[in-house]
């Protein structure tokens, strides 16, 4: 299906055989990384997002001037494909009370609620309750506009400035999304723990 679109679109730029081969070499090398990042960014739709990315990137391969920039260029296309899919799938955005989220401190909440009464390193022990799958589930509860910068910066090591470039957003916007994303993550981590019955006295 995707291939048909490429042909019908008439905008194929990687139309020389040599380009096709170097595109395949680049993409094949990057597939594991693209997929891993897409899993973090949009969960179950990761494979579809990578497919979107391959088709888009193939169409635009002629625009890539510097072969050394290939991996970053592909990642940027992937991130936008994930964002587009996230938008298309988004249900009506949940009302988030940012006033409340802004005031929330997981550190203080833990100290106050003391959910692991026998722990002498409460905060660390709380975090050690979560495996990578839990973290992924918590992240997927965040609206994508907050999740995407959070994942790219704090899990994949990109600079906020680089994320701004990928998403074509002002740096200030990305920094604000990061700030809110972190706060939301703390809040959702707590809510997730509560719903799992991690809290003392909570129903299991």
């Amino acid at each position, binding site marked *: 299906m*995707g*291939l048909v679109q*490429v*042909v019908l679109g008439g905008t194929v730029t*990687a*139309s*020389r*055989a040599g*380009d*096709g*081969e170097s*595109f*395949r070499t680049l*993409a*094949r090398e990057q*597939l*594991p*990384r693209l*997929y*891993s990042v897409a899993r*973090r960014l949009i969960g179950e739709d990761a*494979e579809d997002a*990578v*497919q979107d990315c*391959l*088709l888009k990137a*193939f169409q635009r391969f002629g625009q890539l001037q510097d072969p050394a920039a290939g991996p970053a260029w592909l990642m940027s296309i992937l991130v936008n494909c994930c964002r587009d899919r996230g938008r298309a799938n988004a249900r009506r955005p949940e009302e988030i009370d940012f006033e409340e989220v*802004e005031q929330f*401190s*997981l*550190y*203080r909440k833990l*100290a106050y609620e003391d959910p692991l009464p026998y722990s002498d390193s409460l*905060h*660390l022990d709380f*975090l050690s309750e*979560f*495996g*990578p799958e839990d*973290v*992924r589930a918590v992240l997927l509860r965040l609206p994508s506009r907050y999740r995407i910068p*959070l994942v790219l910066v*704090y*899990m*994949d*090591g990109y600079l*906020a400035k680089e994320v701004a470039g990928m998403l074509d957003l002002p740096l200030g916007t990305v*920094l604000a999304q*990061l*700030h809110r994303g*972190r706060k939301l*993550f*703390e809040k959702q981590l707590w809510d997730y723990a509560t719903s799992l019955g991690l809290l003392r006295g909570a129903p299991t």
Partner: protein
Amino acid sequence: MISCAEATRQLWEYLDGAVDATARDAIDEHLARCRRCCGELEFAHELRRFLASSARNGIPDDVLQRLNHTLEELGLWVAT
């Protein structure tokens, strides 16, 4: 001195080096005197480490196969 709320609001930005010099000095001054906010700072560090260490990489064989197949198709089309 800035309040605890003001200091903790900017802790991650502080750790990212994304605050200006004036704000950084104000937070440093606050942290030097406020034990509770030192705890917050330490926890912010831990949370960042926690997020980074939760990143799992890898691609299942069947997914890799399907995506490689897409690539082959693109390549074939170009070659003809």
